[in-house]
C-alpha cells in the first residue's frame, strides 16, 4: 500500500498540475491502481454503494432545501408544495425519504459484513471506529431530517428523543430546554434541527474521507481474513472492482427505484401525513424501521435513565468490538462457533426490530399462553449485550479455528498459473 506510485502524467497540463496539486495522482493511486484482494465478494460492494447514497442524499437534499421552509407554520405546507407544484418535486422528495431508508439498509449490511469477516480487527480498529462515527452521524442526521416535514410522527419523535436527555441527573432538564429553545418542541427546535440536518452530512463526508484513508493504509480485508502476502493476491481496483461495484450498485439502485416509483410511502408512517398537533399524541409513536432495534432496547428497561444508558450502551458496545473479540483469526469462515453466534446476533437484531415496532403493552397469545412482548424484548436486549461482552471474548479464547489457507491466491488460481499483472 505504501508503494511507489506508478502514475505518469501524459499531457503538459497534467504534468503542470501534478507538480502543484497531485490530485490526479491521488485518484490514480486510490481508485485505479490500488491493489485490492482478488477474492472480495458481493458483501464488499456496499462501501461503494454507501458513497453513492451519500451523494444522492446530499444532492437531493440541497435541491429540496431550495423549496422547503423550516418554520413550524409553513413546513408541512412547503412539503406539499414540493410534492404538487415544484417540477419533479415529488420525485426529489421520494428520492430523499426512500434514499435515507436504503442508505441505512446498506450501512447495516456493510456493518454486519465487517462483523462477520473480522474487518474490525488489528490493524483496522481505527477504520472500524471511524465507521461507527459515521453511523452515529447518520443516525443523528436521519433523526433531525425526520422532524422537518412537521407531521405527527416528526413532532412526537422529536419530543420523545429530546426528552431522553432529561434522564441525565442534575443538568438533564436544562439540557432539554437548551435543545428545545423553549418549553416544548416548537418552531425554535425545528429551525435549529434544519440547520444541523443541512450541516451534518458534510461532516459525514469528511469522516468518510478519513474512513477511506484509514482503509487504504493496511488495505482491504477479504473473506478469508488473511493478509495479502504478494502481488498475486491482489488486482488493481480499476477495472476489476470498478466494474464489479458498478454492477452491484445498479442492482441496488433498482431496488431503490422500485420503492421510489411503486411503493414510495411503504417504509414511512401514515401519521406523518397528519400535521403536527402538540395536543394530540398518536396512539403508537414509532421511529423509522432503522431505529427500531434501539427503540426496543430503550423501552425494555423500565427505568428512564437506565433505558437511556442501555440505548447508548448498545451503540458504545459497537465502538469497542475490536477489543471484545479475542480471536486471532479474523474471518467467520474459519470460526465455526463464532459463525453460529453471528447468525443468532442477526436474528436477535431482527427480533429487536420487530419488537420496536409493536406497542409497548403488546401481548402474544401462543398456544393458550399469554406473553408480554416487553419480556421478550428484555431477553433480546440481554442477549445483545451478552453476545458482545461475553460471547465474543469467551468464544475467541476457547474456539479452535479451522486451518487457514496459505494465501489468498492459492485457493483461487489453478496450480502453476500466473496471475494477471
Amino acid at each position: 500500500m505504501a508503494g511507489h506510485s506508478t502514475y505518469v502524467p501524459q499531457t503538459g497540463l497534467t504534468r503542470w498540475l501534478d507538480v502543484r496539486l497531485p490530485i490526479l495522482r491521488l485518484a490514480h493511486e486510490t481508485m485505479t491502481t490500488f491493489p485490492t484482494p482478488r477474492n472480495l465478494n458481493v458483501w464488499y460492494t456496499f462501501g461503494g454503494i454507501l458513497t453513492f447514497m451519500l451523494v444522492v442524499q446530499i444532492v437531493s437534499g440541497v435541491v429540496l432545501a431550495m423549496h422547503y421552509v423550516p418554520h413550524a407554520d409553513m413546513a408541512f405546507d412547503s412539503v406539499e408544495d414540493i410534492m404538487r407544484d415544484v417540477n419533479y418535486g415529488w420525485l426529489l422528495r421520494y428520492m430523499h425519504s426512500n434514499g435515507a431508508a436504503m442508505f441505512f439498509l446498506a450501512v447495516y449490511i456493510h456493518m454486519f459484513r465487517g462483523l462477520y469477516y473480522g474487518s474490525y480487527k488489528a490493524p483496522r480498529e481505527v477504520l472500524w471506529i471511524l465507521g461507527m462515527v459515521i453511523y452515529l452521524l447518520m443516525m443523528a442526521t436521519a433523526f433531525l431530517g425526520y422532524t422537518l416535514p412537521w407531521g405527527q410522527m416528526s413532532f412526537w419523535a422529536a419530543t420523545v428523543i429530546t426528552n431522553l436527555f432529561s434522564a441525565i441527573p442534575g443538568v438533564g432538564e436544562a439540557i432539554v430546554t437548551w435543545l428545545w429553545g423553549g418549553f416544548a418542541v416548537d418552531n425554535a427546535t425545528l429551525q435549529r434541527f434544519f440547520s444541523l440536518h443541512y450541516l451534518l452530512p458534510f461532516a459525514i463526508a469528511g469522516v468518510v474521507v478519513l474512513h477511506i484513508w484509514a482503509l487504504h493504509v493496511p488495505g482491504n480485508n477479504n473473506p478469508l481474513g488473511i493478509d495479502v502476502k504478494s502481488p498475486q493476491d491482489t488486482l488493481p481496483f480499476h477495472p476489476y472492482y470498478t466494474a464489479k461495484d458498478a454492477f452491484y450498485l445498479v442492482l441496488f439502485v433498482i431496488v431503490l427505484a422500485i420503492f421510489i416509483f411503486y411503493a414510495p410511502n411503504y417504509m414511512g408512517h401514515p401519521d406523518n401525513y397528519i400535521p403536527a398537533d402538540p395536543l394530540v399524541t398518536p396512539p403508537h409513536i414509532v421511529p423509522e424501521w432503522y431505529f427500531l432495534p434501539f427503540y426496543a432496547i430503550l423501552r425494555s428497561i423500565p427505568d428512564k435513565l437506565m433505558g437511556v444508558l442501555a440505548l447508548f450502551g448498545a451503540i458504545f458496545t459497537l465502538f469497542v468490538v475490536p477489543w471484545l473479540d479475542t480471536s486471532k483469526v479474523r474471518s467467520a469462515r474459519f470460526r465455526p462457533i463464532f459463525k453460529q453466534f453471528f447468525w443468532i446476533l442477526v436474528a436477535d437484531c431482527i427480533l429487536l426490530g420487530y419488537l420496536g415496532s409493536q406497542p409497548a403493552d403488546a401481548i402474544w397469545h401462543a398456544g393458550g399462553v399469554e406473553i408480554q412482548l416487553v419480556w421478550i424484548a428484555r431477553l433480546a436486549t440481554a442477549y445483545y449485550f451478552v453476545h458482545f461482552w461475553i460471547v465474543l471474548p469467551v468464544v475467541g479464547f476457547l474456539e479452535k479455528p479451522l486451518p487457514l489457507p496459505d494465501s489468498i491466491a492459492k485457493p483461487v488460481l489453478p496450480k502453476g498459473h500466473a496471475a494477471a499483472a
Partner: protein
Amino acid sequence: MRKILALSCAAALAFAAPALAADEAEHPKQMPWSFDGPFGTYDRAALQRGFQVYKEVCAACHSLKYVAFSAFDDAGGPGFTGEEVKAIAAGYQVPAEPNDQGEIFDADGVRLTRPGIAADRLPSPYANDKAARAVNNGALPPDLSVMVKARHDGPNYVYSLLTGFAEAPADMTMAAGMNYNPYFAGHRIAMAPPLLPDMVTYADGAPASVEQMAHDVVTFLAWAAEPKLEERKKLGLSVLIYLAALAALLYLAYRRVWRDAH
C-alpha cells in the same frame, strides 16, 4: 442450517399477531381500485363524480386546502379543460385581499370575498379550527387533502368508514352526538353518516348509491393526495427498463473484465 433456523425463527415470530383489543377498528373492506398496482391509473369519470360528491357533501365541513383549481386540468387528474377550470374556480367565493381601504371585513363583520381564479386553492368552509369546532360540537373535521395517505390502507379505510355506519350494538353506550362505526378506532365517531342514497345527482347520470358515491369520492381523494401518481408510475417503468438494460450491460462488462483474473 443453524443460520436458516435462526432467521426463520425471527421471521415466524414476525407473523405472530397480537390479539385485537375490544373497540379496535375493524380491518377495512378490501376493494379493487383503478389506481392499484404498478400500472394503475385514476378512472377519470370517477374523479369527476368524486369531485361532485366532495363539493356537494363533504366540502360543507372538510377543507381540501392543498388542492389548487389549476390542478384540475393537469394530466393524470379529473381531465377538466382550462375553460371548465376557470368556471369551477369562479363558482367559488374565496377570501379577498384587503380592499383599497385596507378592509377585509364588510360593515356587518362578514369576511369580504371574491370569485376564485385557477391559481387559488379550494377555500375552507371555516375561518379557522376554532370556528370549525364551535359548529361541530367541539370536533374538528380534518382537512382531506392527504387523508388517503394519512391512514393505514387509506383508500380502503376511507371507503369502509363511509359505508360502514350502522346501528350501535345494544350493549354499547353512545354519548350524545356520537355515531357508531366499527371501522373507526373506538367505534364512536363524531361525524354523522354523510352519504345517503341519491343525495347527489351525477352529471353523467350514473346511479348514486352510497357505495358508488363512496367509491367515487375515495378515488377523488386519492388523486387529491397523490396527483402525480400516473406520472410517477409511468416514469418508473422507463427508469426500471433502463436500469435493467444497464444492469445487463454492466454484468457482461464485469464478467468480461474478470475472465482474465482466473
